[in-house]
């Protein structure tokens, strides 16, 4: 039995109200939507907020809208809603695959697009009970001073574990963030999802205290990209990724114009592979091309022992999963 720590409770009915609550209690709040990440982490005493701000009452954060400028996905859209939305299914199969591979049906019914983006990083030495962590003297990410993954390390390397974020990045999507200035004026800004994440496992995104993720915006230019997602995990029914690969391709198997590959669940931040255009631009997909892309991925990606599975094996699986995801996106046999 895992009990929750005591906390005060706010349930704002609008983004403005939510930002006002956050501003009135600086440094004391934890934002909760579906609760599938925050609640177990609270039970493990990984977060110790004095107040929970529950977003469930904010109607404007719900809904998926497709317009000329692209696709808008509200932060409170559940992963089940995202994966079953007809427009998303037609145009962005990679998003659907990623959302449908998150955890279990119940968790997808509860978990939200915003929560999935803001998912806390995960590590063998972090996602444990207080008792377990205390026995090891805690760690860099919470309550301690040393990293058990990289013993001399000064920076937390807990793994970014969101399934959908790598696909958003491959699509060039943006995240909209609402904030409130000292005078109480509310403003919104959009930044690329790729720029939302930073390589610090303690807090791996740029969201400042008092800010709120409100929407994900997929640009019109992303229509026509072929997308796919592959996830390596211990159990197909329910597990976080130990390796994830998102692919977006412009063109087709006969002629690839542009290729984006994003690999994650290795460090605190998803990695977008570099140098792919020189290999693929204008070429047809074949075994040699797939091997070359896989080799780039193997060279640029370096798994750590931050999740409890063999690091060398995960490294060897990087090119395998990149090749499979590329074939999925192009609709050809792997």
């Amino acid at each position, binding site marked *: 039995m895992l009990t929750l720590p005591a906390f*005060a409770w706010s349930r704002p009915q609008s983004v403005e109200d939510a930002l006002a609550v956050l501003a009135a209690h600086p440094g004391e709040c934890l934002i909760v939507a579906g*609760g599938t990440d925050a*609640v177990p982490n609270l039970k493990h005493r990984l977060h110790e907020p004095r107040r929970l701000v*529950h977003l469930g009452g904010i109607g404007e954060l719900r809904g998926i809208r497709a317009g000329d400028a692209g696709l808008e996905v509200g932060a409170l859209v559940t992963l089940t809603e995202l994966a079953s939305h007809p427009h998303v299914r037609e145009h962005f199969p990679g998003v659907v695959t990623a959302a449908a591979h998150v955890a279990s049906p*119940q968790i997808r019914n509860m978990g939200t697009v915003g929560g999935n983006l803001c998912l806390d990083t995960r590590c063998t030495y972090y996602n444990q009970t207080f008792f377990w962590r205390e026995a090891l003297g805690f760690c860099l990410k919470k309550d301690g001073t040393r990293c058990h993954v990289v013993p001399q390390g000064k920076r937390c390397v807990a793994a970014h574990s969101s399934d959908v974020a790598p696909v958003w990045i491959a699509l060039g999507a943006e995240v909209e963030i609402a904030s409130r200035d000292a005078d109480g004026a509310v403003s919104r800004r959009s930044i690329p999802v790729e720029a939302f994440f930073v390589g610090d496992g303690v807090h791996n995104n740029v969201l400042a205290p008092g800010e709120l993720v409100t929407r994900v915006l997929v640009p019109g230019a992303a229509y026509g990209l072929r997308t796919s997602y592959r996830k390596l995990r211990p159990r197909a*029914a329910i597990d976080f990724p130990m390796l994830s690969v998102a692919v977006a391709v412009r063109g087709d198997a006969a002629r690839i114009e542009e290729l984006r590959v994003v690999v994650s669940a290795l460090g605190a931040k998803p990695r977008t592979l570099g140098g792919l255009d020189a290999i693929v631009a204008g070429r047809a997909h074949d075994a040699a091309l797939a091997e070359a892309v896989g080799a780039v991925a193997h060279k640029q990606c370096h798994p750590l022992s931050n999740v409890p599975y063999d690091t060398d094996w995960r490294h060897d699986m990087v090119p395998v999963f990149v090749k499979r995801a590329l074939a999925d996106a192009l609709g050809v046999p792997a």
Partner: protein
Amino acid sequence: MDAAALVPCTMQVNGDARTCAITPATTLLEALRYTLGLTGSKQGCDKGDCGACTVLVDGVPTLSCLTLALACDGRAVTTVEGLADKGVPHPLQDAFDRTGGAQCGFCTPGMLMSAYALLQREAAPTRDEISHALSGNLCRCTGYTKILDAVELAAAELRERAK
């Protein structure tokens, strides 16, 4: 509202309006089991892995161990206690009994709720669809085969009744 205050939370539980006094740090599972006395939903892993606490919130399978009770204020909650009709087991419960789908029985309430929600939206699910719908419910006894058999049997019985 502050952390120690008991606040009222009213939910439509199995068709009845039920009000309980809880602190904000109370999960839906704790409210159901320890405040309302509905101990059918099981406290298994208590962190969202096992599915034994599955209930329906507004008809949607939800892990009550990860749901804050106050987030359900004003909403409809269906638990395993709500499946039987005036003491007559639901066809799913009957089918679990007939196929041996319940052994130790700890996962059964969650299995039943996930299966119930599936049969509400799909009268004739395939074996794969059943397996997928129950993929968030872990069972350590049966090896799942008899549970899948039970859901198929109940689906057939419900289709027969609907004729």
